[in-house]
């Protein structure tokens, strides 16, 4: 089935040129990076841009670098790049684990991490992990550059804090002080292409500071602050795990769709937290399963 909607296509060579092109085009403009969401949305007639701006010819947007105690990802960094990066393996292996669950090689070779959070579907895999890492998003627009903390980024399904005329220029991810351990658990009906039915990332630092975020069980991926408060600074006991699990229902708002019922999603989130907490601690302490091992 061809794409029925007609649009103009512009390939830009610099970020400034991109901002200019967006400003000239008006509200209905879309950025094209990997295109793995954009193309099916065009085919489905779900979006009707006048202009599609391809940013892949801009030099330097595919860089994945370490800047002090941060990792910096450019807008063209793909999920496959996360899987092969030594910086990721050495400093933030949770990004490897997350990327390894995304779709299939043919998608991961093309789909970008920043595109994933710009599409902002509730099940986006990068969401929960970037939330527990306190990532921030660099944005450029007609009024200049600004930074958006990831917790203020997601506003609703497919809605973000990106204002009209703006473009994302990078993602900055603080590397938690070692030692830290983390885990991303994603339930899907089958491996290979399926979106998340429910997902959770748990991160724990050396002083038992816990960070927990859920995906696919609410309109946006979100941190579970009440659970984090209940766990903060404490040693993980069976009783404490049970207390945290008791708070899951209040932290999520799942719906029923073709992938799972809301009751199933709610229950599986409890199971994932119950398994995820000790696994994150074991990884922090060097005794956990290797990153990338599926625990569910």
């Amino acid at each position, binding site marked *: *089935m*061809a*794409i*029925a*909607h*007609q*649009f*103009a*296509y512009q*390939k830009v060579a610099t970020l400034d040129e991109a901002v200019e092109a967006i400003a000239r085009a008006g509200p209905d403009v879309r950025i*094209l990076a990997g*295109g*793995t969401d954009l*193309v*099916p949305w*065009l*085919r489905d007639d779900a979006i009707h841009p006048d202009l*599609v701006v*391809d940013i*892949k010819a801009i030099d330097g947007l595919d860089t994945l670098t370490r800047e002090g105690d941060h990792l910096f990802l450019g807008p063209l960094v793909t999920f*496959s790049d996360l899987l092969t990066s030594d910086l990721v393996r050495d400093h933030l292996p949770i990004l490897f684990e997350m990327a390894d669950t995304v*779709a*299939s*090689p*043919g*998608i991961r*070779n*093309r789909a970008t991490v920043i595109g994933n959070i710009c599409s902002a579907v509730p099940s986006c895999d990068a969401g929960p992990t970037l939330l527990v890492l306190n990532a921030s998003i660099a944005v450029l627009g007609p009024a200049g550059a600004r930074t958006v903390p990831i917790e203020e980024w997601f506003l609703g399904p497919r809605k973000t804090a990106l204002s009209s005329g703006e473009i994302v220029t990078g993602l900055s991810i603080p590397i938690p002080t070692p030692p830290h351990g983390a885990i991303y658990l994603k339930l899907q009906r*089958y*491996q*290979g*292409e399926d979106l998340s039915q429910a997902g959770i990332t748990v991160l724990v630092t050396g002083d038992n500071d816990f960070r927990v975020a859920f995906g696919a069980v609410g309109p946006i991926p979100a941190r579970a602050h009440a659970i984090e408060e209940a766990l903060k600074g404490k040693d993980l006991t069976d009783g404490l795990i049970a207390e945290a699990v008791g708070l899951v229902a209040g932290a999520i708002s799942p719906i029923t769709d073709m992938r799972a019922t809301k009751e199933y999603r709610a229950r599986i989130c409890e199971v994932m937290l119950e398994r995820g907490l000790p696994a994150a601690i074991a990884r922090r302490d060097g005794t956990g399963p290797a990153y990338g091992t599926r625990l569910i």
Partner: protein
Amino acid sequence: MKLPITMTVNGETWPLDVEPNDVLLDVIRTRVGAKGAKIGCERGDCGTCTVLFDGRSIRSCLMLAVEADGHEIITVEGIPENGVLSNLQDLFISHNSFQCGFCAPGIVLGAHELLRDNPNPSRHDVQHALAGNLCRCTGYEPIIDAVLAAAEEARS
């Protein structure tokens, strides 16, 4: 608005005029004539439209043709060398890996990429690499066996 592009498909240069909304899969099939790339789900789910794009597997149903300007594409037709099937392809045949064969082009290319990047894959590695290539006929086992056999033969 026709856009002039030039892409290489299986070693041949193709200057083409495309519309911004032309999908790469359709252009590869109807303009270039490489019908090995199949039309399946057209939403990234099945893998049968897989081609190698600058050497890496991608889903050509998820790309605009204009994005291929200046790039190199290999379809399953480009895998045999001088008309001789690759060892992997021979092993797919001797293992009776496929029935209807609709998934085969995507699986040949996906397995080709896997063996190039990881000459020593475990059974799980093969399953993981091909997890997004759906086959409605075979149950996958003879496909995985053939890929593992190809890896073993390449090592010995």
